[in-house]
């Protein structure tokens, strides 16, 4: 009877497991292997794919464009994740109060959720077109600006990894991530019992104090999961940067995933592409590790 039941279990789980291993685990290991080989499509016919040890990683680290992309990737995660979590938390806090029209406002705020990333990139490219940008038009109308901001092409002003195109893409990344953060935070806020707020109010806590001394600490487990997920997604992010600027101008919006893609499909250097993508894997792994360690500590 038990043997029959086990057989049933393995039969049920086998097809999915085969797929997960073949298309999840295997490619990861193959990519690690590829990064230690010379895998240049142009040279494969004559030289094959010899083992070269750490040479690909050395090539990357000696490349200033790579270092720039690495710094940008981390800066994007800090700015975009920080921005979207702060904004999303504030909105969630407001939307979890009872007031008339709450449902409508919630729908309006969540509308960007199901806009495909390519479409989001398309809309914002159009909104960022310097002469016809509604944003420039408003700034000009208010007398704040006299010349058009070239959102995606201005490389005159930089401060470390920060630049105008950097912020322009960050805004789009915040825009497209906001609905998820609002929904996630609202679910978290609902789990905080109302009595806690009542008790805090009785003790004379104002709404700002309630937010910092009740909401934030109670929300910490949810926020930790949220930030971990966003950071992992953010490090491997590809679409918006690739479509909006392709990493330019002067590499100001270049990130690791875009760089890996271009190594592979513009230069046919799959070895460098694999090495770059493994750096992304390592960064993701570090965040995953920090998360797990923190979970264990709290138990």
């Amino acid at each position, binding site marked *: 009877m038990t043997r029959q*039941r*086990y057989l*049933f*279990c393995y039969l*049920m*789980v086998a*097809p*999915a*497991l085969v*797929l*997960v291993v*073949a*298309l*999840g*685990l295997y*490619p*990861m290991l*193959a*990519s690690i292997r*590829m990064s230690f080989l010379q895998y240049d499509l142009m040279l494969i016919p004559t030289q094959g794919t010899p083992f070269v040890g750490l040479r690909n990683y050395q090539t990357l680290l000696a490349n200033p464009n790579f270092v720039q992309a690495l710094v940008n990737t981390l800066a994007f995660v800090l700015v975009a994740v920080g921005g979207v979590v702060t904004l999303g938390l504030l*909105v969630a806090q*407001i939307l979890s109060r009872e007031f008339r029209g709450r449902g409508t*406002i919630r729908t*309006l*705020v*969540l*509308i*960007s*959720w*199901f*806009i*495909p*990333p*390519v*479409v989001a990139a*398309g*809309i*914002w490219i*159009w*909104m960022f*077109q310097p*002469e*016809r*940008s509604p944003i420039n*038009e408003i700034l000009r109308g208010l007398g704040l600006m006299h010349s058009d901001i070239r959102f995606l092409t201005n490389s005159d002003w930089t401060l470390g990894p920060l630049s105008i195109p950097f912020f322009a893409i960050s805004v789009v990344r915040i*825009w497209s991530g906001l609905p998820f953060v609002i929904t996630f935070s609202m679910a978290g806020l609902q789990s905080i019992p109302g009595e806690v707020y009542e008790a805090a109010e009785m003790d004379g806590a104002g709404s700002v104090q309630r937010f910092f001394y009740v909401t934030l600490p109670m929300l910490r487990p949810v926020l930790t999961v949220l930030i971990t997920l966003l950071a992992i997604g953010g*490090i491997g992010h*590809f*679409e918006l940067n690739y*479509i909006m600027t392709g990493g330019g101008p002067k590499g100001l919006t270049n990130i*690791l*995933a875009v760089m890996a*893609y271009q190594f*592979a499909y513009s230069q046919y250097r799959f070895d460098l592409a*694999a090495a770059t*993508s*493994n750096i*992304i*894997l390592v960064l*993701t792994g570090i965040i995953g590790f920090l998360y797990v360690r923190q979970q264990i500590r709290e138990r």
Partner: protein
Amino acid sequence: MAIQTVSKAKIQTAGRTHFRLVRRMSTALVVTFMAGVILFTLFPFYWMLKSSFQTPADITSLPPIWFPTHATIDGYYRAVTLYPVPRYLLNSLFVSSATAALATFLASSAAYVLARHRFPGAVFIMGIVIFTQLIPGITRVFPIYFLIKDLGLINTYAGLILAYLGFSVPYATLLLTGYFTASSPPELEEAALIDGCGHFGAYARVVLPISLPGIVAVGIFTFLGSWNDFLWSSLLLSQGQMKTIQVGLRDFFSEAGNLQRMNSFMAACVIATIPAILLYRFLQRGMVSGLSAGSIKG
């Protein structure tokens, strides 16, 4: 005594007006903030719709026209005639539906036994599923490109569907394991087993039907995951007529300098968004009615 009460009352009213003022100011602040957020989230949406209904002359005018006075569907007409947009849409619909159907079929069987049965290796298998979820797409895409190439499936629907299953199956398995653990009472399966159904029978005839709302919801999520993809389809299915709509939109980008065509590009963007929004609405309603149907039966 009397003086004391009077002054106390005075202080109280003074305090209250002060409090009310603070409250009004904070309400005004909150309203302004929310108005700003709604403008931020909604305005790009408006700008896309507006631009899609403008004429080429209006869309290039300087300064930009905020509220078009004459609408035209010229942009939509051009979007579907300049490039094979309807065909791209069908490609996307086919690939995403096939992925959703296959992924939920495979994932629901696996998720069911992972959630409901104890067997050697179950925890390990669950660990692999969760771990795979965390591997970034860009790390997997290069070896999978060669794998699909070796299978002779580059530029075929089957190749792209196979690649999509690689991230849809673990995702759907995770969601459905949670769903099976939380819903569908074990007594039902026990009753089915006693009535002479085998394990397969209990699963196929009892568990699957009552879990259908959850499975459909997960199916829609996997559909949307494939629908929105650009990375994989740009590599595996990038040729000619077979492109998915997200890659097809890039046809318009190649002429981004050509502002004349911005209206047809925005129209194509609207077209690429509609199915996703329809499904989202369906999901919201379907979930609610599915849940209520369950409670009536229960």
